[in-house]
């Protein structure tokens, strides 16, 4: 395969991974918004849904503009369909979040199922001199240190789905959930 195509493929994969990660992050955030009856999180989900629409269009345009031959195009059709599915997932997540935005306290069954405990969600910004700056999530050991679980990282207006190898940067906003008493610990850890 020509080098030019190889690069195109890599770009397509990269865009797709972003689509997939965002749609899955939305599911996590949507269920958390129910659990916590948090309008703020539910609004984030709605905002991300618009973002996914845009990502999806860009992704489709990128694939269409590649000018592949028929055999190659067949392998790409599967990828285009995957793109459509990520958007469906994003839509479903937005519907979950809508339940919160309608303003009726979610039924206790929803909360029971999503998590047994009374939890809180918190947003903290990572300071330059924090111990966790430039560490990967795995080595930062935030759940062990604070009891808080990272749902998402907001970085320069983008949402990142946390993975063990994700590096925490100064200025990142960590969206975390956990027991109320872990909140203080997390704040101290992130911005001492």
């Amino acid at each position, binding site marked *: 395969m020509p080098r030019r195509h190889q690069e195109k493929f890599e770009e397509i994969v990269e865009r797709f991974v972003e689509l997939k990660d965002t749609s899955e992050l939305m*599911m996590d955030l949507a*269920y958390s918004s129910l659990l916590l009856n948090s309008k703020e999180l539910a609004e984030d989900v709605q905002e991300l849904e618009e973002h996914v629409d845009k990502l999806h269009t860009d992704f489709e345009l990128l694939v269409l503009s590649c000018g592949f031959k028929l055999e190659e195009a067949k*392998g790409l059709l*599967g990828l285009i369909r*995957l793109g459509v599915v990520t958007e469906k997932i994003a839509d479903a*997540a937005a519907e979950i979040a809508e339940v919160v935005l309608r303003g009726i306290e979610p*039924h206790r*069954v929803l909360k029971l199922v999503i998590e047994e405990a009374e939890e809180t969600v918190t947003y903290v910004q990572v300071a330059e001199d924090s111990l966790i700056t430039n560490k990967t999530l795995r080595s930062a050991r935030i759940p062990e240190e604070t009891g808080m679980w990272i749902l998402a990282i907001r970085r320069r207006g983008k949402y990142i789905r946390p993975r063990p190898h994700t590096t925490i940067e100064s200025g990142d906003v960590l969206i975390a959930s956990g027991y109320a008493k872990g909140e203080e610990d997390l704040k101290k850890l992130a911005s001492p």
Partner: protein
Amino acid sequence: MPRLERIEYKPISVRKLFLDIKNLSELMIDLAYSAALFNDKELAEDVLELESRVDTLTYLLEMEIMIAARDVEDAEKLAGVSKVASAADKISDAAADIAAIVTKKIGIHPIVSEGFEKVEERLIRAKVNEDSILVNKQIGELDLAARMGVDVIAIRRNKDWIIDPEDTTQIESGAILIARGASAGIREFKELVEGKLRKLEG
């Protein structure tokens, strides 16, 4: 037209039904992506089977919700449960769409799968051979996460699925294990499950 079965009312709690729908739909997404990216037909078929299971559960949940509503306040809150369950059902439909890429032989370009292997953890499906050293062991005692970076996310015994098995869940001969992990660990694990590797390293 597919033949649709009649769904008869069974008394199962709203909580149990919703829990199953949510867990299954989330598991299905993971299974489906893995099926599509690694062209795994068996995983794809599991997903399609689970999709019809979720359809049935969603139907039963709707019935249960109708019975549970006693007044306006109940109805307002239960409408939210119904909405969320139907969103989870849509997620399971989306997973089935992904699985169809495999079963309809559309496929995904191998370069894409290669690209994915670099960034994503892989999922495998393996049937427990009767000679495997894992037979009758509890998941917890194997220490899979520390040994090979592998996590068993589901077990299928005939038609039954156990999602997120407990440490005390036993591995039975003939069961199908679905596990997630980095590619080296997952290969080793598959060999252990299938009885091709007879020793636990590390």
